[in-house]
């Protein structure tokens, strides 16, 4: 990597737009699958009714911009919270909120969507740390998204 390119999380890249335009299927209006507000991790209340027994997405901020089919393939039928493990302050609060999802809201599953850049791994670590500290166990899935929206990895973490 060129020295000037710096951190992979903030390295400048220009994707080939022409190729994407050629592969884009013709579709009509795409409806939002978002069923709640707020969504930012500092603003959400983990005890909100839409988290009770839910399948929850914990998504890195950039994911929804990179992943073309985010609403249809991942957000549909799920509750959500978003966060940036690199830039957000006070992430100890996040840890407690994830624990509250598991123990108090009794969520059904937790899916953590992160970008491929190294700093994003912090969000998965945070989720696993919270799950380890929780009294209940829930299945945790993690999905790693490439910067051009490709799914690089989709696995269940050990419960």
């Amino acid at each position, binding site marked *: 990597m060129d020295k000037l390119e710096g951190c992979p999380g903030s390295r400048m890249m220009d994707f080939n737009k022409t190729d994407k335009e050629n592969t884009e299927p013709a579709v009509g209006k795409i409806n939002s699958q978002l069923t709640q507000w707020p969504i930012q991790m500092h603003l959400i209340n983990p005890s909100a009714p839409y988290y009770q027994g839910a*399948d929850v997405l914990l998504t890195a901020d950039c994911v929804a911009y990179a992943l073309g089919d985010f609403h249809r393939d991942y957000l549909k*039928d*799920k509750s959500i919270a978003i966060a940036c493990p690199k830039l957000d302050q006070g992430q100890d609060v996040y840890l407690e909120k994830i624990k509250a999802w598991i123990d108090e809201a009794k*969520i*059904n*599953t937790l*899916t953590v969507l992160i970008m491929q850049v190294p700093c994003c791994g912090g969000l998965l670590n945070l989720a696993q740390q919270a799950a380890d500290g929780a009294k209940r*166990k*829930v*299945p945790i*899935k993690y999905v790693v998204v490439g910067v051009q929206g490709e799914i690089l990895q989709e*696995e*269940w973490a*050990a*419960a």
Partner: protein
Amino acid sequence: MEAYLDKGIKEIIEEFPGVEDVLSDYDIGCGPCNVGICLLKDIVAIHRLSDEQESQLMARIARAIDPDQDIRIPHAEKKTGTKPKDFTYSPPMKKLVDEHVLIKRWIALIPEVVKNLDVESEEGRRLILDGIDMIRSYADKYHHAKEEDILFKYFDEEADILKVMHEDHTRARALVKEMLAALEKRDKQTIVENLTAYRELLSEHIRKEDEILYPWMDNQLSTHQVGELFAKFDTVDRQIDVSPRKYEAFIDQLEKKIKKQEG
């Protein structure tokens, strides 16, 4: 030739025995299966072969069916989401796979147990009863019940692959029943035969589940269903009157005893 895709694999193997060897080369062990009602198309689809492997397999099956003709068997339709990769089980499936470990440890001890089987002494009969209890309580009530009462309900129970699993469970229960009757009569030979048959049956059954059935099921289950299964299995574990620790202790002791006898 499309008709072969809709034929039961046992029927195909009986007519063209070479097909069994071809399947074995791809770790598809239909030969020893005692039911064999799965259709060729389902077997190919369920084993998550790469497109290249599947094409090779189909070409070899075609040659095994008729070496003289250029037979083409159509591509089997893959179940959605199946792809060749290093598989990671979902947490509820992992739980079932982990439960297999203790059953496999018991199965591994059966040849030695059979060698020294004693139906006359109290101690000998106790060992047989404890082994049967391990099969009935841990393998059947604790483990198979999770499959039959919970997991299989998420799928079409009329599917051939599930019928095969049910048949294996039924056969295992029949073997146990016969063993208990034989123990009453001090019929050592029948117990030896049935324990050996149980070992063969469960070894193949577990292999089919770990390598084929569970990965296939995991590919079909939604994230929501995985969470549901995980919670339901957890409820069973908390409510059932079977203690896995008791059976772990039984296997630990038996392994030590056999090791001592061998040493």
